[in-house]
C-alpha cells in the first residue's frame, strides 16, 4: 500500500510538475511575444526580404541648406566631434565643378526638397502600417512617425555624405541608366560594415567608384541615440541616369 500510495502521490506530483512546466512555457511565450512584437510596432517592423519602400532623394536645394536647422546637420546629430568632418565635406563640395545644365534643370523641376520628399514617403508608409496594425494605440503610431522622421534626418545626412564622395568624370559611361545596389550595415558609431552588392552594374569601374565613395564616407555620423538597434541595415541604390549629358 505504502508503495501504491507513494506511486500515487508521485503521479500527482508529476501532473503538477507538467502543469507548472506548461504554465511556465505559456508565461515565457507571452513574455517573449511581448518582447518581440512590442518594440517592432514602435520601429515599423518589416518582415520582407525586398525593399519595403524606396526613397528618391534629390539634391538639397539652396533654401534647404540655408535653413538654420539644416545648416549643420552633422553637428546636430554627431556632436562637436564630427563638426570638423562636416566642414571637410563642405569644402569638397565647393571645389567640385559646376553641375551640367541638365542637372540644374532637374533641380528646378524637383521643387520638393529631399527631406520633405522622404518624410512624405515615410509618412505614407507609417499610415499604411498603422492601418494594418489595428490594435496599435494612437500614441504608438505617433511615436513611430516621429521615429521615422528622425531617421529621415539621418538618411538625409548620410545621403549627402556619400554623394559628396561619389565622383566620376562625365561622359565615360557606355549607356544611360546604369544602376548598382549596395547593402551596408551602419553600426551605432557610424562605421560602415558588411558592404555587399545586391546588384552589380556590370561595369567594374562603376562598381569600384561606389566602393571608393563608401570608403571615403566611412565613418558616417553615429546613429541617432534613440535608435535602439545595434546597427542599421540599409540599401543604397547608385544611379547614373544623368551621368551622360
Amino acid at each position, binding site marked *: 500500500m505504502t508503495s501504491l500510495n507513494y506511486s500515487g502521490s508521485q503521479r500527482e506530483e508529476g501532473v503538477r510538475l*507538467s502543469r507548472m512546466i*506548461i504554465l511556465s*512555457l*505559456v508565461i515565457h*511565450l507571452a513574455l*517573449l*511575444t511581448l518582447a*518581440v512584437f512590442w518594440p*517592432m510596432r514602435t520601429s515599423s*517592423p*518589416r*518582415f520582407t*526580404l525586398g*525593399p*519595403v*519602400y*524606396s*526613397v*528618391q*532623394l534629390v*539634391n538639397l536645394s539652396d533654401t534647404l541648406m540655408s535653413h538654420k536647422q539644416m545648416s549643420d546637420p552633422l553637428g546636430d546629430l554627431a556632436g562637436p566631434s564630427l563638426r570638423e568632418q562636416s566642414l571637410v565635406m563642405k569644402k569638397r563640395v565647393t571645389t567640385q*565643378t559646376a553641375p*551640367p545644365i541638365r*542637372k540644374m534643370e532637374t533641380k528646378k523641376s524637383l521643387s520638393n526638397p529631399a527631406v520633405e520628399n522622404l518624410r512624405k514617403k515615410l509618412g505614407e508608409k507609417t499610415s499604411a502600417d498603422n492601418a494594418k496594425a489595428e490594435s496599435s494605440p494612437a500614441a504608438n503610431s505617433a511615436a513611430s512617425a516621429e521615429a521615422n522622421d528622425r*531617421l529621415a534626418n539621418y*538618411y538625409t545626412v548620410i*545621403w549627402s555624405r556619400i*554623394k*559628396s564622395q*561619389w*565622383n*566620376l*568624370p*562625365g*561622359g*565615360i559611361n*557606355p*549607356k544611360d541608366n546604369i544602376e548598382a*545596389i549596395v*547593402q551596408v550595415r551602419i553600426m551605432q558609431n557610424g562605421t560602415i560594415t558588411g558592404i555587399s552588392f545586391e546588384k552589380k552594374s556590370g*561595369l*567594374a*569601374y*562603376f562598381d569600384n567608384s561606389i566602393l571608393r*565613395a563608401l*570608403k*571615403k564616407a566611412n565613418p558616417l555620423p553615429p546613429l541617432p541615440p534613440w535608435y535602439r*538597434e545595434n*546597427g542599421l*541595415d*540599409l*540599401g*543604397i*541604390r*547608385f*544611379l*547614373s*541616369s544623368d*551621368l551622360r*549629358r
Partner: protein
Amino acid sequence: MKSTIVSISAIILLITFLAPCRGAAKDYIDIDAPNFQKFPIAITGFTKAGTDSDKEGLAAWFPDNLSKYLEITGYFNIVPRKAFIEDPARSQGNILFSDWTTIGADYLVKGHFSGQGRDLSVQMRLYDTVRGELMREKKYTGKTTDRKEMVIQFVNEILLLLTGERGVFNTQIAYVHKQGKNSEIRAITFDGSAQKQLTNYRSLTLAPRWSPDGKWISFTSYRDGNPDFYITGLKGGTGKKVSSYPGLNLSGAWSPNGRKVLLTLSKDGNQEIYAMDSTSGYIQRLTYDHAIDVSPVWSPDGKSVAFVSNRAGSPQIYIMDSDGKNVKRLTHEGNYNTSPSWSPKGNRIAYESTVGGVFQIFTISTDGTNPQQLTSQGRENKHPSWSPDGRYLAITSKSGGTDRIAVMNANGTNFRVLCEGSNPAWSQYFQ
C-alpha cells in the same frame, strides 16, 4: 501532454529564431548621380636602378609624359608635384597612402627603370590610395626609343581600369589642309604628335573618309577639272579615280563592313545619294527627290543611313533604311542642320547647326529626341566626326579667320586644338 510541450517549445524556438529577421528589413536610399569630377592622380618621379647618371632625364621624362597622355584624355586631374608631402625618410620605401589622400590624390603612379646602353626596362605601378591597394603593375622592356609606346601602353591600362575602355592613341584623324588655292588630305595622330600628307594632287581636294580597316582613304578632288571620287592606300601610291560621272562625285562614308561606299552624285540633275560597291564599282541609287540630298553616313550596324536634305525647305537631317526606304526626318529644331556623324555606339548623331548665324556642334538621339548643344559661341564649330570609342569628337573650329582641327570629349568638355585644317574624319583603331 508531451506533444503539447514539444509544440509549445517549437513555437518558442520559432519565435526566437524569427526575432533576428527584424534586421533583414531595410530602407533604400537613391543616389541619383555621381559628381562630375576628373580622377585626381599623382605621378611621382621615377627611380633609377644603379648609380649611373640619368643622362636622358628619364626620371622626369616618364612622369611628364604619363601626365601629358592622361591629361589629354580629359578624365584626369594631375596633382601638381608642389603639393606632394611624401617624405622618403619617413616612408622608408613604403607608401603611406594617407600622404596622398591628404593632398587629394585618389590614385598614385610610381615607376622604376633600369637601362644599359640603348636597352630600357621600366616598371610602372598604379595604386588606389583611398583603398590602399595596388591596382596594376606592368613591366616593359625595349629600347629607349620605345619609351613613348611604353607610356601609352600604361596609360591604356589605367584607362581600362578606371573607365572601362582603352584610349584612342592608336587612331588618326584625316583632314583637309589648305595650301593657297589648293588643298590636300593629311592625317594627324590623336595626341597631335605626328602628321602625314596623304595626297599631292596640287588641286582642290576635300572630304576624306576612312575605310573601316584603316588601309584606304577616299576623297573628292578637282585634279582633272571635275570633282571626281578617288581612293588611295595609306602606304603610298597616287590613288585611283573610282567615280567620275558628270557633275559632283562627293565622297561619303564607308559601310561598317567596308563593302560599300556612299556617294553624292549629281549626274541625274540634282544631288542624290548612291551606294557604290567598293569592289565592282556598281552603284545603287538610294534617294529620289527633287531636293538636294547630301552628306550620307552609315549607322554602326549598317542598317540605316543618315543624310542631309532640304526637301522640307531648309537643310535638315534624315534617316532612312540602307536601301533608301522609310525616310524619317530626325531634326526639327533649328533651320540649318548639316554634317551628320553617327556615334559608334549607335545611340546619338552629331551634327552642326546654326545658333545666331554661327555653326555649333550638337548631338541628338537617333529617335530625334534630346538635342544637346556641345559647343558655344565665340568661334564657329563644324564638321563633327566621332572617335571609334564614341568618347570624343573631332571638329573644325574657326576663329580669327583660320580653320583648325580640334578634339573634345563627347560632352563638349576638354576642347583641344591639334593643327590648322578642316573637315576631320576620325579613323578606326590601327593594329
